[in-house]
């Protein structure tokens, strides 16, 4: 081909091919070593060698959807990080939270953010929310080999559906399994080691059509309950001023709630619970 002629380089034909608009597919063709899931994984369990992120919860409310995550990463019996962030804005109208092997998960989020932005730049429009959810499923599916060696990544995806019909709920949540299965959730969802307890908590506190404030409280309370019973989930840490990360996605886009706001919610929950304990003792 002409690109091999000495002295000239420029774009290879893969770059100039106008057909595809997926960044992952493009990397797969030109630089597959940059993709997670394309690397050989040794056939031993690597589960205790890498930090793992833990609990992520999401819940819809009347104006959109909220997603929150605790701040702990664990490596075997150790706490490897107290301030890791596991919830990110995927693009302007969607958020992604990750549980599982932190290194692979963060790489996957980075790739996913570029994937969405890349599509937007090339096509001049954003993917539909279902399209975004499907792209993420394909990415998780590619990681199945590593998942079976203990390096599973399980995300939770939520977004505001700009194409939602009038009157329909625009805030939507998608959960995944390690094989790339993609399930739309109704109302609320959780993933990670503390998800069992978080879900139990959400079941009692969440109702359809909550306001943003009530849903935030419900979400932070679920993380509190998860931290209560799961050693791998960190609770609100008033000493270090570390609070769960909470993102809100509504018609205006995805925003991260300021730490002060989450701190107030966490303080209110702690106060209510200690008041409850005192009244039982009295």
């Amino acid at each position, binding site marked *: 081909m002409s690109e091999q002629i000495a002295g000239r380089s420029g774009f290879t034909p893969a770059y100039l091919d106008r057909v595809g608009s997926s960044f992952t597919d493009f990397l797969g063709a030109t630089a597959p070593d940059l993709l997670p899931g394309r690397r050989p994984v040794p056939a031993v369990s690597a589960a205790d060698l890498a930090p793992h992120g833990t609990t992520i919860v999401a819940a819809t409310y009347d104006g959109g959807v909220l997603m929150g995550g605790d701040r702990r990463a664990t490596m075997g019996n150790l706490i490897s990080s107290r301030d890791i962030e596991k919830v990110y804005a995927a693009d302007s*109208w969607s958020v992604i939270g990750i549980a599982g092997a932190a290194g692979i998960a963060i790489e996957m989020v980075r790739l996913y953010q570029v994937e969405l932005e890349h599509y937007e730049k090339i096509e001049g429009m954003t993917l539909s929310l279902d399209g975004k959810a499907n792209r993420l499923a394909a990415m998780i599916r590619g990681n199945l080999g590593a998942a079976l060696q203990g390096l599973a990544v399980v995300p939770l995806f939520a977004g505001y559906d700009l194409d939602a019909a009038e009157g329909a709920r625009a805030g939507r949540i998608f959960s995944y399994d390690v094989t790339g299965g993609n399930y739309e959730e109704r109302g609320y969802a959780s993933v990670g080691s503390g998800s069992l307890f978080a879900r139990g908590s959400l079941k009692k506190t969440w109702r359809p059509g909550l306001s943003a404030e009530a849903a935030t409280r419900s979400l932070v309370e679920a993380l509190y309950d998860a931290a209560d019973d799961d050693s791998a989930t960190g609770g609100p840490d008033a000493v270090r001023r570390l609070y769960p990360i909470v993102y809100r996605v509504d018609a205006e886009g995805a925003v991260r709630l300021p730490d002060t706001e989450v701190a107030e919610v966490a303080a209110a929950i702690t106060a209510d619970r200690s008041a409850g304990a005192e009244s039982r003792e009295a």
Partner: protein
Amino acid sequence: MTMPYYASAEQVMRDRSEYARKGISRGRSVVVLTYDGGVLLIAENPSSTLHKVGEIYDRIGFAAVGRYSEFESLRVAGVRLADVRGYSYNRRDVTGRVVANAYAQTLGSIFTEQMKPFEVELCVAEVGATPEADQLYRLTFDGSVVDEPDFVVMGGQAEAVSAHLREHFRAGLPLRDALGVGVAALSAASASTQANGGEHSTLPAEQLEVAVLDRTRPKRTFRRITGAALRTLLGAEEASTPAAEETPAPPVPTEPAPGTPPGLGDPGAPDTAGGVDPDPGTPA
């Protein structure tokens, strides 16, 4: 194999240049100019979907004239190059120079090695942290690259447009004035204005494709100006919505919170970037 007629290399190059030049001058013009808040890209383009102006990366924009299919594949290649670099290094490591160099190499090798050269002329614009750091690279069909100060005019009646601009352009104009100067220059040479036998006094908003690289925006600086926002800026609806002129939000400093891996988004800035109307009431 029979030998074709002998033609000197000089003759071949001259023929190709002439061919490319003719193709480029048939179209409508594009103007890229700096203003106090960044870089302004204006194209005379009646189509609202076949863009001549596009986003390459956070601080890099693209404008082109000539054959659509050719510059479109170059635009896509630029986006891919920028995204691969940004993904494998860091977002800050993607510069206009890298993209311009890749274009120059590509155009150069196509010009010398293929029968038909690309009939395109490109501008890679990069907005810096200060007006002095703004860069405009002009790339021609033969792969030459020029770093232009202030403004770049390409395609159509480029001579007439740049003569008009040289007369009226000043560095550091505010957006509204810069747009006025750019549109006046395009109108002076456009076939659809009265001066040249058309029906408009100046080019209307429907005939223009306008975008800015806005220095004040965090992360992705590219923004299209369309619809009512454009008409207001052009002065057509001045009386009805005088306050609609943008009040740019102060740039949110991107200080990564502890625990944030480098390059992972900017939580302070929900960013719509390209393609989306800046009016928050009407998302996408």
